């Protein structure tokens, strides 16, 4: 809290230090790279959203009247691939993590700034490959690329999509590698592991998954592409190969990938809830270590996607039990957030509304995950809309709510401008209502037996599908609103003070927007994380500031 007044003349910061397209495309500043990612993933979010819109429009009526079955297969496939690999996986780590982790640990930049820029370029190359795939016909295998359909039968652009996702994986690996080295080696004096913000802890756990999981999907896609191009027989039962091997390899990454999406969101929520309850987080070390536990357990549950695929019943039992086990660290987090709220001085600003939304929706998503890890229930609801609703509660209700909450929380720091609070609260409400209207009916649809991935359905399912499509329209409005008022605020918003929320954490001790090297001098940390009791009683955080 160096100063609370807003200066009249704009100080030099990372945004106005240099101008011109070259100063952005060749930057090694982690904050500028974060903004490059922000623009890129927003683009892909709207592409993925466009496909979602087509899905919901087709399902408005029982008959398959908007698109043909083959087209519908492509639409849901590309919705999944774009949203998972080009939006959700990079979302919070590449934007907020990139921007905040060096500042939160008290460093001038990530450990490898040029590798950070390289990861963005790799992402862009992957994005161009994906766009090329979509524009030249698309792919219809489902985002899961199941063999032997993908390798021997599909007549669509499987190789192109596989290569695009293969390339995007390297971007993800390099981001994770950069984070781990930065967190280990770049922490400021006094920034011990037990003083790290929980946002950093959750990104540490995320990075472990990115580093160890992503190479496995990479090699799996190499095998799929080789098998499809040359008919080697590795995954083709007619030639002695085993399709289940593909599923094992695929889910070994793609289940932990869910935790790549949700863990950063949990980190965001762990920052927001203490700030707007004006309390220290309850059980810091449990919240921190539960992130690591989720990353570790997350690697041991993959075959719960394969209960009906023909794995042995004993393997299924083990994976079922392990899937239950992953609920424990997740529940630890939810209980600790709730305990943090207890007797807190709660403020209902927009970031907090998103955090509330996250906790509620993640809880529903997590609990329905327990239904699915129960062998008997999974037989009934496998490949139905119950599964769709479950993972959208985690990925959209969880990951995306956290992303939006984080964007609101740190927007004053990122842009130096305040967003309009009234509109933001309204948008949070619209997103929450729209989300539930979209996806709650899908739980019922799935329980009643509506299978996923069909473009038509029996007429008795129509009411619930209409509700879902209506909700999707509301949700679309909710997503457009922040984009409009964020852009608006960049020009017309009030200048943001250094610490608009009176929040703890090194990022709030520096100016908004930060200078290129973040800190005028090497900061020295002498306080514990989330010391809201000290902040509110007037005890200042002692930061060494030049001058």
């Amino acid at each position, binding site marked *: 809290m160096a100063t609370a007044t807003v200066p009249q003349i704009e100080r030099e910061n990372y945004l106005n230090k240099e101008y011109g397209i070259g100063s952005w495309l060749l930057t090694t500043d982690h904050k500028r790279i974060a903004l490059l990612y922000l623009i890129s993933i927003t683009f892909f979010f709207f592409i993925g959203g466009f496909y979602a819109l087509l899905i919901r429009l087709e399902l408005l009526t029982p008959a398959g009247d908007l698109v043909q079955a083959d087209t519908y297969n492509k639409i849901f496939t590309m919705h999944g691939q774009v949203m998972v690999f080009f939006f959700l996986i990079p979302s919070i780590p590449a934007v907020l993590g990139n921007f905040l982790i060096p500042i939160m640990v008290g*460093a*001038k*930049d990530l*450990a*490898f*700034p040029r*590798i950070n820029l390289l990861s963005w370029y790799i992402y862009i190359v992957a994005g161009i490959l994906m766009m090329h795939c979509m524009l030249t016909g698309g792919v219809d295998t489902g985002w899961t690329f199941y063999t032997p359909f993908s390798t021997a039968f599909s007549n669509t652009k499987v190789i192109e999509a596989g290569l695009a996702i293969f390339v995007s994986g390297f971007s993800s*690996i390099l981001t994770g*590698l*950069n984070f*781990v*080295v930065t967190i*280990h*080696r*770049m922490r400021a004096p006094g920034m011990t592991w037990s003083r790290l913000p929980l946002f950093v802890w959750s990104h540490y756990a995320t990075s472990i998954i990115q*580093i*160890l*999981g*992503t*190479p*496995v999907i*990479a*090699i*799996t896609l*190499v*095998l799929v592409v*080789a098998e499809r191009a*040359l*008919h*080697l*027989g*590795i995954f083709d039962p007619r*030639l*002695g*190969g*085993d399709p289940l*091997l593909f599923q094992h*390899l695929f889910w*070994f990454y793609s289940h932990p990938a869910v935790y790549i999406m949700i863990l950063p969101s949990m980190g965001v929520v762990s920052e927001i809830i203490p700030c707007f309850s004006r309390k220290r987080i309850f059980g810091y070390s449990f919240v921190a270590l539960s992130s690591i536990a989720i990353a570790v357990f997350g690697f041991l549950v993959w075959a719960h996607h394969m209960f009906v695929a023909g794995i042995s019943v004993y393997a299924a039992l083990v994976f079922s039990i392990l899937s239950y086990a992953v609920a424990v660290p997740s529940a630890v987090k939810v209980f600790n957030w709730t305990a943090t709220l207890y007797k807190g001085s709660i403020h209902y600003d927009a970031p907090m509304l998103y955090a509330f939304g996250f906790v509620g929706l993640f809880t529903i998503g997590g609990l329905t995950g327990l239904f699915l890890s129960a062998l008997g229930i999974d037989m009934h609801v496998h490949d139905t809309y119950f599964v769709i609703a479950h993972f959208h509660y985690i990925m959209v209700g969880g990951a995306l709510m956290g992303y939006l909450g984080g964007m609101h929380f740190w927007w004053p720091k990122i842009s130096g401008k305040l967003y309009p609070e009234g509109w933001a609260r309204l948008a949070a409400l619209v997103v929450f209502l729209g989300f539930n209207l979209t996806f709650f009916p899908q739980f019922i649809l799935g329980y009643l037996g509506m299978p996923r991935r069909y473009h038509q359905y029996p007429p008795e399912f129509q009411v619930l599908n209409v509700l879902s499509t209506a909700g999707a329209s509301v949700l679309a409005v909710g997503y457009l609103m922040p984009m409009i008022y964020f852009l608006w605020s960049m020009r017309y918003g009030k200048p943001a003070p250094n610490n608009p929320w009176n929040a703890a954490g090194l990022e709030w001790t520096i100016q908004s927007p930060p200078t290129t*090297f973040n800190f005028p001098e*090497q900061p020295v940390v002498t306080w514990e994380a989330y010391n809201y009791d000290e902040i509110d009683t007037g005890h200042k955080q002692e930061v060494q500031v030049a001058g």
Partner: protein
Amino acid sequence: MPDSTAAVSTSAHDDVHSPALLHHFATPEQQRNSASFGMWIFLGTEVMFFGGLFCAYLIYRRWYFADFAAASASIDVKMGAINTAVLICSSLTVVLAIWGAELRNRALMIGMLLLTMLFGLTFLGIKGIEYKQKFDEHHVPGASFNFEHEEVPSQPGHYANAYHAQIFFALYFIMTGLHALHMVVGLGIFTWLLIMAWKGRFTPEYHTPLEIGGLYWHFVDIVWIYLFPLLYLIDRHK
């Protein structure tokens, strides 16, 4: 692993600001530690990358052991053994190059870098000859693949299943091919290291690129140390 800490400890209390120190690091030691830690993590991802292939290989080897043994018997164990020796020697020369940098012995450093690259090229040359043999024998998976009437070793009168042998050769080419690709990347890295060494960038205080380039090279060697017995030596014991 050549993690030579002895030479670096002097640099910490040198007040001379090293030109190689990047702006966002406080000390040369922090920079060096970050670089080598980053490389170790990258090697972790490489272990998982090859790990997926090893997993697939081990499953099929267990299922189709006799067919895999027959297919393995058709590849040239002498060539593989020579290549193993070549790579082990190249790991030694990498370490000697780093030693040269630590001794400020430019001739030793550059000579050993050149020798390392020579070993690398020899490996790729021998690998190329092996691939050519497989191509001539129609053992490359695909339309012209042919593995009929090949006896299973130690089971006279039993012939290998050609489909299963094709899986062996598919994995053989993907595993050794990816390994060879890593060798090519390694040669690229070493060309760059050679240029840096030629320009006199490496000193006893600063030769981090040599160290992390060396780590990468050792890793690629170690992958081969596993590939050789798995692919070449199935059921060779009599």
